[in-house]
């Protein structure tokens, strides 16, 4: 019985402490300093790109054994809001949207609807270049292609 009281008390204390911490954060800093952000930066001759859009331009088949293919390099940065560096995060990606006309690969890994790990140890505070490859099979008629890559990063 004594132990049950002890557990209850500890839980209550922890809960109370956690709530207090939450209140302190809410009062003094609206943004969680441990929060992290993800950003995208082009590193090669990309025609147009904002932080969320990458237009790879025109694709035409150049190699006999493959379809139309283009590779673009994008630096994916993981940073803490506080600016503190150090530590690592796991970078995952999946296709949030695909018109079904193109195969999308990151660093040679084909993306699908399910999340996959792109980098299990992405350093926080720096950007790592990843190769985004778009391949359109020869059987696909000419025209626009569009896909949306959803990236997620979480601290390890």
């Amino acid at each position, binding site marked *: 019985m*004594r*132990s049950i009281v*002890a*557990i209850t008390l*500890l*839980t209550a204390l*922890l809960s109370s402490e*956690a709530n207090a911490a939450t209140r302190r954060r809410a009062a003094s800093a609206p943004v*969680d300093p*441990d*929060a*992290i*952000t*993800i*950003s*995208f930066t082009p590193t090669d001759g990309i025609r147009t790109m904002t*932080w*969320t*859009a*990458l*237009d*790879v*331009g*025109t*694709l*035409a*088949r150049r190699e*006999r054994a493959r*379809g*139309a293919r*283009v590779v673009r390099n*994008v630096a994916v940065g*993981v940073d*803490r809001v506080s600016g503190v560096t150090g530590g690592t995060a796991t970078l995952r990606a999946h296709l*949030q*949207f695909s018109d079904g006309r*193109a195969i*999308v690969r990151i660093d040679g890994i084909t993306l699908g609807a399910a999340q996959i790990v792109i980098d299990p140890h992405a350093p926080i505070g720096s950007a790592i270049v990843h190769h*985004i490859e*778009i391949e*359109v099979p*020869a*059987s*696909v*008629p*000419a*025209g*626009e*292609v*569009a*896909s*949306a*890559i*959803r*990236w*997620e*990063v*979480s*601290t*390890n």
Partner: protein
Amino acid sequence: MKKMMMGGLVLVALVGTNAAQAATSSGTLTVTGTVESSISLTVESAGGTTSGTGTAAATSALGSISKYGSAPTGFTLAKGASDWTLSSTVGVNVEKANLTSTDYTLTAQLGSAPATGIVWKLNGSTLSDSAATTLTSTGTYASTGSYSWDIVVADSAAAAAIDNAINFTATSN
């Protein structure tokens, strides 16, 4: 005593849960592009000592040729009354990508005017450097077409190099 240890373990577990909360962030990168239709032409085979087959720029070396000598590799030699003919074939493959076309037209044209007394033929048609000759207007994609290739040399032709180029052009129908 056992019960007290249990309480201690619960505490550790609770603290651990709080500390293990991972910070996460996510973003979406939209990728767009435009696919263009394309076709490719490759010379797959030819008489003579060839190089570059399987590409769009093949070379065939016949070496020294004469009416009363041996035929070059991959050629046959036929002697006529006033001329002689070297005969072989040229294999041309055309592939398509991102294109709905079902067939293509293939033409050939000499890169330069042939030497006097020399006639170049493909599929029985005489080639020139001034106009393209149609070899087929219903070429099948991804299937190597074989075209007869003749070089007719008049007995009166000067002994000299007969070098030339055959430029193939495929156009999707």
